[in-house]
């Protein structure tokens, strides 16, 4: 694209890092809203830990995106000074927290995908991508175990908890399709040995999800029409509210340090 002497921007990898950065950032922000509101203090801390893990991962991905872009934008500039249509997170993670079952169902569906994604990225030919994935996958291995346990506890729990968990799964299911769609960016990076073949994740994801749902005596929702668009900046209206809350302080005093 650039005919000058400057090295060409690796726009595919920039986009890819942005997607993972935004996805972990938005979910981290969502989960952090439970702080002080969880059912018991132990769960409060556990959820806060998960949120902090995700925000930590977001910082790494967004920093990488900024380096690739090489236009002076750091992690903060990318997190706080872009609007909803510039965010590249998958739609699943911007779904509202709802009740505890909604949050845990979202977490479980996401964690499972996240784990397999990172597992593959850990052997990426790009050292920076591999390093972030190797660090993150250990955190996510714990997330996926915890959220799976909660799906089983609530699904195989009381009538109320079972009903809520099933409803949560039914609500969120149409947002899982996007996780397994590869577009031109993904395909280019797979070809270069850098990215992850998301379509190939569908099978291991399904296997794990089915196993947990069976244990939880829950029904796997039917695969029907699936939402998509998050990866290219088309979001649900909820993202705007989330960003407004997340960005307002930083934008009110740009350049301030504290």
């Amino acid at each position, binding site marked *: 694209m650039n005919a000058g002497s400057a090295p060409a921007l690796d726009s595919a990898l920039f986009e890819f890092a942005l997607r993972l950065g935004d996805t972990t950032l938005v979910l981290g922000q969502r989960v952090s809203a439970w702080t002080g509101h969880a059912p018991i203090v*132990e769960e409060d801390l556990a959820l806060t830990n998960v949120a902090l893990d995700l925000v930590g991962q977001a910082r790494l991905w967004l920093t990488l995106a900024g380096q690739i872009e090489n236009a002076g934008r750091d992690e903060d500039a990318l997190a706080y000074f872009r609007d909803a249509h510039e965010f590249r997170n998958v739609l699943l993670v911007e779904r509202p927290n709802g009740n505890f079952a909604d949050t845990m169902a979202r977490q479980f569906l996401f964690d499972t995908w996240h784990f397999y994604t990172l597992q593959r990225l850990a052997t990426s030919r790009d050292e920076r991508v591999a390093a972030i994935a190797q660090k993150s996958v250990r955190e996510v291995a714990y997330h996926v175990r915890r959220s799976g346990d909660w799906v089983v506890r609530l699904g195989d729990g009381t009538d109320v908890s079972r009903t809520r968990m099933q409803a949560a799964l039914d609500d969120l299911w149409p947002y899982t399709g996007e996780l397994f769609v590869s577009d031109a960016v993904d395909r280019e990076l797979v070809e270069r040995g850098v990215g992850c073949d998301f379509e190939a994740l569908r099978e291991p994801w399904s296997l794990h999800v089915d196993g947990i749902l069976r244990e939880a005596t829950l029904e796997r929702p039917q695969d029907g029409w699936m939402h998509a668009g998050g990866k290219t900046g088309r979001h649900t209206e909820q993202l705007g509210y989330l960003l407004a809350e997340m960005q307002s302080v930083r934008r009110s005093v740009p350049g301030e340090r504290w």
Partner: protein
Amino acid sequence: MSDTSDRAGWPLWEVFVRSGHGLSHKHVGSLHATDATMALQNARDVYTRRNEGVSVWVVKSSDVVASDPSDRDLLFAPAQDKTFRHPTYYTVPEGVKHL
């Protein structure tokens, strides 16, 4: 409220953490959890957030058998004046090597 050891199916657990230096597990506090698996996970999340440990034990508080505080004098006071039970009580005879 009345029974803090089992608030509606959330019994109390005692948590022991072993730090990374080959020391024994040490009691660090307690928490509520519905079962052993959750107790371990909660222990990890509540008590090892700052890299405190490499191993965690959880024990149901109700399974801990403790001495009665009112037995303190009866059980422990008699040991107070038994200085001869400490190795430092004895003087080492001159000429003894390899001690």
